[in-house]
């Protein structure tokens, strides 16, 4: 009798997104500021026009959130930050809130980690330490912050409601076909997101052999945590992939300079809707030579 072979998790990007990002879901997106954003997956969500019930960011959202918001797919955002750090504010997020169409579940950074940890443990909430100054968040977001009494001391502390994303979209530098992943740089809140989510779709710069993943070192996560794996070379562009390539500052600045909905729609067409696959995307942003110039190895030659 033939022995069954180990099952590959690798799926075409369109299929992975269609299967695991359901309309109206709580979708968590990995990365922080302009680093490790799962942009290939996010661009695919936009191509398929999948409406997102609640978008959750990690330690700090940036383009990952702003692009989905601008595409009109986000009803609500659960976040402690959406911006572009030293490059400036997130235009679509800002406009969405100021115009009144986008709901915000206002939280702080500790909330994100506590809520995901609670979700990962299957606990209903996680208490803050005594004295933590989050009363203003509770005032505007009682859905996520409530007072609880410590049953052991009687002391009142704030509680962060558990977050259980329906799906997390996350980037790793390397993965093997079975989903064993190597994270070569920071994981930010991605590890907690993966552990808390019902499903995680992982994009990676390269799908390599199990031996190559082991040899790469870095922080590993086991394949059983991932529902699907997608190969996405330069899949974080224009954000960075730690250890592989830098963020594309000029591209991000051009994005931040887009004027009005018309220019934003044109950006979507050129960089999101039209390009079929990584090669076409690379051509839309200046070609492979440009992308190669962002590689980490080139940095020290400044």
């Amino acid at each position: 009798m033939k022995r069954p072979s180990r099952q590959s998790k690798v799926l075409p990007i369109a299929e992975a997104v269609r299967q695991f990002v359901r309309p109206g879901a709580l979708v968590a997106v990995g990365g922080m500021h302009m680093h490790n954003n799962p942009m290939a997956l996010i661009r695919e969500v936009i191509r398929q026009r999948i409406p997102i019930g609640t978008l959750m960011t990690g330690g700090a959202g940036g383009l990952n959130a702003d692009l989905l918001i601008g595409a009109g797919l986000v009803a609500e955002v659960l976040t402690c930050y959406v911006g572009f750090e030293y490059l400036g504010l997130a235009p679509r997020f800002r406009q969405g809130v100021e115009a009144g169409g986008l709901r915000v579940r206002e939280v702080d950074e500790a909330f994100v980690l506590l809520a995901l940890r609670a979700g990962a443990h299957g606990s209903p909430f996680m208490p803050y330490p005594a004295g933590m100054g989050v009363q203003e968040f509770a005032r505007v977001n009682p859905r996520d912050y409530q007072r609880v009494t410590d049953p052991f001391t009687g002391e009142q502390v704030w509680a962060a409601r558990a977050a259980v994303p329906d799906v997390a979209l996350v980037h790793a530098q390397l993965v093997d076909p079975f989903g064993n992943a190597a994270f070569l740089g920071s994981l930010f809140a991605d590890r907690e997101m993966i552990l808390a989510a019902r499903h995680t779709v992982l994009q990676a710069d390269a799908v390599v052999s199990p031996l190559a993943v082991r040899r790469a070192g870095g922080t590993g996560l086991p394949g059983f945590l991932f529902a699907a794996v997608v190969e996405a070379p330069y899949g974080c562009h224009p954000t960075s992939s730690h250890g592989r390539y830098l963020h594309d500052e000029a591209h991000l600045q051009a994005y931040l300079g887009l004027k009005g909905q018309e220019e934003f729609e044109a950006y979507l067409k050129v960089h999101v809707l039209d390009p079929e696959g990584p090669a076409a995307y690379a051509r839309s942003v200046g070609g492979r030579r440009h992308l190669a110039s962002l590689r980490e190895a080139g940095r020290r030659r400044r």
Partner: protein
Amino acid sequence: MARPFSTAELMACVVSRALRDGEVALTGAVNMIPVSGCRLAQLTHAPSLTFIHGGSGGVNSQLAPLTASSCDAESLRAEARLSLQEIVALACRGRVDVFFGGGIQIDQHGNCNMVCVGPWHAPRFRGPGSLGLPYTSQAGRTIIYTTAHTPRTFVPRVDFMSGVGYLDGGASRAQAGPPGGGPSLVVSNLAVLDFEPETRRLRVCSLHPGVEAAEVKRQTGFPLVMPDPIPSTPAPTPMELRLLRRLDPRGLLRRLA
């Protein structure tokens, strides 16, 4: 007026001089000034200082060269790495001696806002969000920094309290009981300020070289406590400047402010 140093370089020196040997400091987003201040302190009077890149998790990064983004992979060329979960735990627990904060609004009692201008439900201006600013309630002390000393930043009262300072001033923070010590210093592009002990109102400590008291008054949206005379912020020493430029060969601090 040509100065041989930039405002951001001066601010980094002010930060450096405010840090003590053996302390643990935590920096957040847009951290070029605090991390270069921390590294400078290590290279001068505080070799046992520890500083954490709150974004990437790098501990005692080499900063050679300084990077613009707090989460840049370069900051992982460091003595150790902490996960974000671990950094949040340390900050919540109060194991951070010095936390660096800031905001789109900073008020007369050192409360900081990163969320909105106007009412939260219908803001005139939506800011990016609070990140780790609530750690101001837990940290040993907080150093607030901003390169935008204007009446829009320095307002009588924040519209959203992302990070608690001295609340309503006086003893109000002490009565509310957060464990941390509150803001100790405000480093702006115009001046160095602290808080008058009795009232916990913002007070000018020194004016940066070339800045007049009238300008600081004009650029602040509430009355400041103003000693008379007000000293000048000591310029970077030649050694401080030499070390800063070795950390920052790309000149990020010179372009910043």
